[in-house]
């Protein structure tokens, strides 16, 4: 019997990056449970429940359309334009913020029992994915109402979502490891997030940005490219170029790997800090 037992040896560990990956895979059922918990409990006491996941971006779109459609009057089917940006942005802000807060506030668990430390960030992205997919339903309705045709280009969406998810995971892990040491990061990030959103053409058309700034503003902003991966196929109805797709995906993969590396390298220390 003793021979079949799993052995934990504190000295014989794979590099943290690899070990964490193995453990996260072993705990995949936990990640699923956490996603389930987050999706179910978020609106548990409200009357409409999970439907809020769909109503939320819709409401925001409505407000923004009322406020800005005159200002950006030249933009065709403004509700579709703005909604395609909002769902991407909400995904980023929700998942990264929740990865951070779950680790710092929910980190009590890490003091008490062993579990892979990346669990919280992965589960946050998982929850975000569920919300994102759900919000595609009202999105389709808005497209239909505004007479925007759904084209074959929408088939690229899984790649766009993957890119977004990888980028958000990397950023979430990076922010979480920072927030363990500096609790103020969470607050600061909210402000940064707001500024970042206004620097990204989410609610305004690209054309209003003065020519001189465009190159800087768009090329140095990974979120611009990721938003384009959604907006081009859904709103414009055209395929993103292979170069655009590849560069966005590469940036996202680098972000995910970097976040994972930094986080796992530090993770052993979290239990002493949180």
């Amino acid at each position, binding site marked *: *019997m*003793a021979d079949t*037992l*799993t*052995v*934990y*040896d*504190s*000295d014989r560990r794979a590099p943290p990056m690899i070990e964490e990956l193995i453990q996260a895979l*072993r*705990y995949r*059922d*936990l990640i*699923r*449970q*956490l996603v*389930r*918990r987050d999706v*179910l*409990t978020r609106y*548990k*006491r409200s009357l409409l429940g999970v439907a809020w996941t769909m109503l939320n971006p819709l409401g925001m779109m409505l407000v923004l359309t009322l406020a800005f459609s005159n200002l950006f009057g030249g933009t065709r089917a403004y509700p579709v334009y703005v909604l395609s940006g909002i769902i991407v942005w909400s995904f980023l802000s929700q998942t990264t913020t929740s990865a951070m807060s779950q680790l710092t506030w929910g980190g009590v*668990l*890490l*003091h*008490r*029992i*062993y*579990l892979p430390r990346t669990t919280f960030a992965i589960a946050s992205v998982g929850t975000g994915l569920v919300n994102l997919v759900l919000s595609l339903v009202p999105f389709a309705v808005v497209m239909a109402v505004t007479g925007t045709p759904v084209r074959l280009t929408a088939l690229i969406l899984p790649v766009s979502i993957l890119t977004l998810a990888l980028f958000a995971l990397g950023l979430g892990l990076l922010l979480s490891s920072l927030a363990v040491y*500096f*609790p*103020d990061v969470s607050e*600061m990030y909210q402000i940064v997030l707001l500024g970042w959103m206004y620097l990204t053409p989410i609610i305004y058309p690209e054309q209003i940005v003065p020519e001189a700034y465009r190159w800087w503003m768009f090329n140095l902003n990974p979120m611009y490219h990721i938003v384009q991966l959604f907006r081009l196929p859904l709103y414009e109805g055209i395929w993103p170029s292979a170069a655009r797709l590849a560069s966005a995906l590469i940036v996202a993969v680098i972000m995910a790997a970097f976040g994972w590396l930094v986080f796992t390298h530090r993770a*052993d220390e979290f*239990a*002493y*800090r949180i």
Partner: protein
Amino acid sequence: MSLRTVFKSTGAHPRGGEPIIRFDHVAVRYRVPHERIGSFKEYAIKRLQGRINHQEFWALRDVTLQIAPGEIFGIIGRNGAGKSTLLKVISRVLHPTRGRVWVRGHVVPLLELGAGFHPELTGHENVFLNGTLLGHSKREILERLGEILDFAGLGDFIGAPLRTYSSGMVARLGFAVAMAWQPDVLLLDEILAVGDEAFQRKCLDRIALYCDSGATVVLVTHDMSVVHALCPKAVWIDQGRVQSAGPSADVVRDYARAAQA
């Protein structure tokens, strides 16, 4: 009804052979910043001035010990002596700063019942959440679900949100999940508060059953008579160091002598 009665009836079942837990010169260091540095600005200023000094706190220093399979092993010491840290190292919550830890098999820390329970989820949903937190797969939980619900004995409440439970009911559910699988190593605190007397009895019976089938128990306690009565071997820790280890009669004697001095 206490742990003592249970272990008296079952006793230890040392199987000999390779130790199931081994500590080789284990040290654990907590780093507590002197004053909490909350912002980058503060950090940058202090960094420049070279004033970032962490207060180092060694919770364990050079602990070497071995626990044989099937043993009931006692850990004694004052509050803050390092007992909990030692258990956390066994359960992998803390990675040793120095030294090496070696543990064989499935460890159940019976100190943290109901970890991650969510008040808005039903008892049934919480079983899956808590079970997966303890490292079990959904399939494993499904296999034992009937048994878990049976043991917790919550009746129709199992479908109600956890916030409607009494604290005793929460503890029962937590225990039922934690103890649904035969552990190889059981981490126990002497004070095991799990609901009313009848349920306490049930829990202790379950622990006894697992001991009979060879589980190793690591027991933390303040009560010398418990150690004396139950644990063939024990260790006394103070200020993170092993002060005395070996047959529990000797360890308890050393501890008592130091307490008088």
